[in-house]
């Protein structure tokens, strides 16, 4: 699976916000999340989008504003929950020290469900972003891709390959 990182328009000086786009598709994972949930949860999707924009342009990503430990150890996956009803979960990879975040997909978490893994849609989105996170880390380690301290990425058009 190949993908590239797209800087979203909510990205700002405080935090750069990217979303992966799978090669061969025309939408990023974040756009897909919005499309999938806007009809049933318009207010919640708007709330999440607003908060991302404020993080990007005004507050920056700060550790109390999200739930960490959303994935396996080392994946750096976190969750944003909507306000007020906390119906949705949106996964992202945090680069707190580098002022960047990579927003993936997510979905609805019914109140009756205890864990993300109990909901197939959330589980698959979580696994996908976890795989993307590890692939980005491998590219950084190999010295072929870099996330700078100001959140900018180099090369910006780098194509990642998960090898699967």
């Amino acid at each position, binding site marked *: 699976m190949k993908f590239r990182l797209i800087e979203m328009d909510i990205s700002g000086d405080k935090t750069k916000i990217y979303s992966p786009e799978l090669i061969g598709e025309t939408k990023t994972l974040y756009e897909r999340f*919005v499309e999938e949930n806007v009809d049933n949860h318009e207010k919640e999707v*708007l709330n999440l989008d*607003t908060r991302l924009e404020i993080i990007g342009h005004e507050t920056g990503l700060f550790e109390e504003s999200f739930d960490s430990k959303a994935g396996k150890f080392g994946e750096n996956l976190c969750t944003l929950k909507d306000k007020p009803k906390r119906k949705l979960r949106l996964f992202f990879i945090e680069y707190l020290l580098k002022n960047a975040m990579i927003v993936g997909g997510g979905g609805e978490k019914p109140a009756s469900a205890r864990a993300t893994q109990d909901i197939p849609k959330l589980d698959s989105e979580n696994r996908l972003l976890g795989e993307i996170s590890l692939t980005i880390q491998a590219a950084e380690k190999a010295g072929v891709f870099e996330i700078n301290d100001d959140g900018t990425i180099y090369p910006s058009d780098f194509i990642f390959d998960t090898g699967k």
Partner: protein
Amino acid sequence: MKRNSKILSELRKKRDNREYERTRTSMLLAASISKAIKSKGLTKSEFAEKMGKNPSVVTKWLSGVHNFTSDTLTDIQQVLGISLLNLGSETSPILTARGNTSTTFNVFIMPDEYKKVKNEGLNPISFATLSNTQVISKRVVEMLSSHD
């Protein structure tokens, strides 16, 4: 180049400005409090103890979705020695204006400039562009130049 997709543009047309400002205020307050706790060298638990609250309450405050009461903000100001309410002096109002497109801009200007805008009936967007040294929200200028 940043992605400005149709689906996201359509979504944002449905934004309620009042709701946007509520969310923004909650997040700005949380970020300011979080920063002040760190600059005071306090842990969240130590701050909670000084406030006489359970640490879980502080976690909620800092989540960026909490609806603060003025009493809570007053207490936080006292403990951290910061200003969150800015009462007693003229505050910098948030002026909302529409640009050439359907995008809504929030223009933050200082009290003196606010008086000038109000008294002279100026368009806040034009004013922000002309006096960008006083504009706190850099994004406004960036967005304006891309539209002009």
